[in-house]
Each structure stands twice: as C-alpha cells, then as structure tokens.
C-alpha cells in the first residue's frame, strides 16, 4: 500500500506526540517549538485548568529545577516536573495568555509601555543574576506579555542551539554581560524608529562588542533607563548642548512658567503702580 506524504507526515506527528499516560495532564495542542523542546497546551485534569507543558530531551531535565528556583513575578512559575514513559523530561508551567514580545511590539504600543516591558525583563534578569543564573538566549520570542500587562521571561539557562544571532553576544563563553548584550538588543528591537537618541545610546552601550565596555550589571542599565524616564541625562550618551537645554526645559517647564509668571506679575505691578 502506498502512503502519501501527508499521511506519513501525520504519522510522524502522532508518533512524536508525548505519551502523557500516568500524568495528570491531557494534551490539547502544540503551541511552540524550538531547539530545546516542544511546548504544548494541556489540561490539568486534577485542578481543571490549562497549563503549558514543555517536553524536552532527558539530558535537559535540569532546566525545570533551574527555573523553579527563580521565583519572581516576571518569570513563569513551574507547577510540576517529571519524566514521561518514553524517557523524555517534561515540566508544567503557567499558561500565559497574551502575545510574544515580537507580536506585541507589532501592535505599536506607546514608548512608555515598551520601556515598561523592557524594565520588567531587566528586573527578572537582575534577579536571576543575583541567584547565579544567566538566561543565555534572551530574545523577543522568549518574552511574553500577558493579557493583564504582566511580563514573563521564558526559556532560561539553556544554551541556544538555533538562537537568533542578532540577540546573541559575540563572545563564545556566555556570562552575565552576555545577557546584558541581549537585553540591549531587546531594547533596540522594541524601540520605535527612529529611537530617542538617549535610548539608542543605552542599547548601543549594552551591545558593545567588548564586554568590559558594556554596563557592569543589569542594575546599571536599569538606572540609565530610569534616568531617561525621569528626564535626566543618561550615562550612555554625551548630550549635545541644545538637547540638554531642551531636556531641561521639558523637565522643568511648569516651574519655569511659574517663575516667569512671578517675574511678569512683579514687573507689571511695579511699572503699573508707578504710572
């Protein structure tokens, strides 16, 4: 009997589906696939809720405990980890309803909203670094923005096999500053074109080829973002005098108007009263 290509494809697909017998999960559909494993949407029969189920090679079973240790509001919580009958490892995590960062940015959110997302990602990174964990493969596909605006960083600590080159630091041995490079690339990615010069400079500083020339840690990058949002000068950018003046005016416009009003009132009262 001849089997058509489509039938063969279907058989391959079914054969690759994880056997979840013996677990509390019921497979629904595939929602993502990468070099490290496949993520499915599944139903937790016991708690009657949907979860994201990642199935990966048993050699990568260490990923779940690694993420589980990182309890942070911007890191997807792990519910359970285990081994399937076929020997593959799996872990169940919160199913985030929302959009991946690349799709989210395509909806043209405001600059403030874009920066809020980057800051949340940076906070998650800073937390992970403080726990001795580096992400290794930060990119827009690994960031989810939930329907309530919550931000989640996913796929931690696994050496990327087919990572997006634009987000990977050039150095071969990855460390915390490689994550800072990726964070700079992520910032550059989310910024609208043309980006505000100060923000472009922050991204470029984070992405310097020489890792010693990058921000020393995520907190330093966050501080520069904070300075930008407060209308202060950022460390990464030597501001031209005209821009400095413009920034000073926009930051203190209300105070300057009040002082001008005071001077005008005094002037008018003085010369008006003399006449």
């Amino acid at each position: 009997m001849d089997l058509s290509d489509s039938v063969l494809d279907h058989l391959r697909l079914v054969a690759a589906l994880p056997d979840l017998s013996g677990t509390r999960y019921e497979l629904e559909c595939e929602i993502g696939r990468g070099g490290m494993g496949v993520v499915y949407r599944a139903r937790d029969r016991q708690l009657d809720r949907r979860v994201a189920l990642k199935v990966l090679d048993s050699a990568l079973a260490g990923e779940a405990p690694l993420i589980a240790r990182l309890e942070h509001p911007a890191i997807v919580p792990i519910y359970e980890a285990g081994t399937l009958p076929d020997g593959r490892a799996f872990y169940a995590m919160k199913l985030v309803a929302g959009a991946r960062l690349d799709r989210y940015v395509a909806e043209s959110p405001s600059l403030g909203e874009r920066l809020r997302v980057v800051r949340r990602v940076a906070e998650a990174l800073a937390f992970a670094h403080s726990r001795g964990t580096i992400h290794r493969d930060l990119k827009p596909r690994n960031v989810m923005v939930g329907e309530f605006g919550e931000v989640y960083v996913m796929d931690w600590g696994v050496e990327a096999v087919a990572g997006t080159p634009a987000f990977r630091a050039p150095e071969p041995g990855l460390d915390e500053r490689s994550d800072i490079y990726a964070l700079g690339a992520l910032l550059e990615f989310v910024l609208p074109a043309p980006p505000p010069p100060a923000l472009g400079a922050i991204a470029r500083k984070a992405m310097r080829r020489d890792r010693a020339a990058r921000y020393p840690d995520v907190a330093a990058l966050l501080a520069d973002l904070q300075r930008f949002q407060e209308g202060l000068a950022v460390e990464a950018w030597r501001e031209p005098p005209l821009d400095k003046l413009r920034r000073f005016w926009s930051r203190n416009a209300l105070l300057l108007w009040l002082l001008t009003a005071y001077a005008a009132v005094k002037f008018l009262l003085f010369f008006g009263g003399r006449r």
Partner: protein
Amino acid sequence: MNKILVGLLAGLILGAIDGATAWFYPETRPVIGGILVGSSFKGMLVGLLSGWFARKVRSIKWGIVVGAALGLLLAFGVAAMDATKGQQHYLEIMLPGFITGAIIGFSTQRAGAQPVTFH
C-alpha cells in the same frame, strides 16, 4: 530631605526673595527688615503646610492648587493687616503670594522623600 523640610526651605527662600522686592518701593524701604522677616515666615508656613500635604497626596496638580490657595490666604491676611494701617496693597501682596505659593506647592511635590511606610 523630607517634603516638609523641602517646603520650609523653598518657603524661606521664595518668601525672602518676595520680601526683598519691596526694596524697589522707596516708601517701604524703612521697614524692609520687618517685611523680609514676615514674608519669609509666611513662605515657611506655606511650605510647612504644603510639605505636609505632599506627604499625604502625590499630585503635582493638587500640590500647586493647595500651595497657591495657602499662599493666597496668608497673603490676604498680611494685606488685611496692612489695610488696618490705612494702606491698601491687596493686589501687590496677594498676587505674588499666590504664585510663590504655587511654586512652593510644586517644589514639595517634585522634591523630597516620601515617608517610608510598612504594610
């Protein structure tokens, strides 16, 4: 520096400057010292109350409104005291008082640390 201290400092500086402008009026020069002290004290009182308000409410808009209202009210008091001596300077005292109050209110909202609270 906390917000009350910011208010007191801003009030002292702006009140002193406002009082010092009386020097431009030759008829007030003999009493410039009293005007400086009174104006500084008025500014500090506006600063104290605006600083206290800023600790409770974080809003530039309401900070300016409250500061301006306090400045206007206290300046009215000063102008009314002046009026009992037969001098009508309501506009000259109240209008700058209104604006300096607004600046003090703005300063207390913009600068100074909020008190730390534990929930």
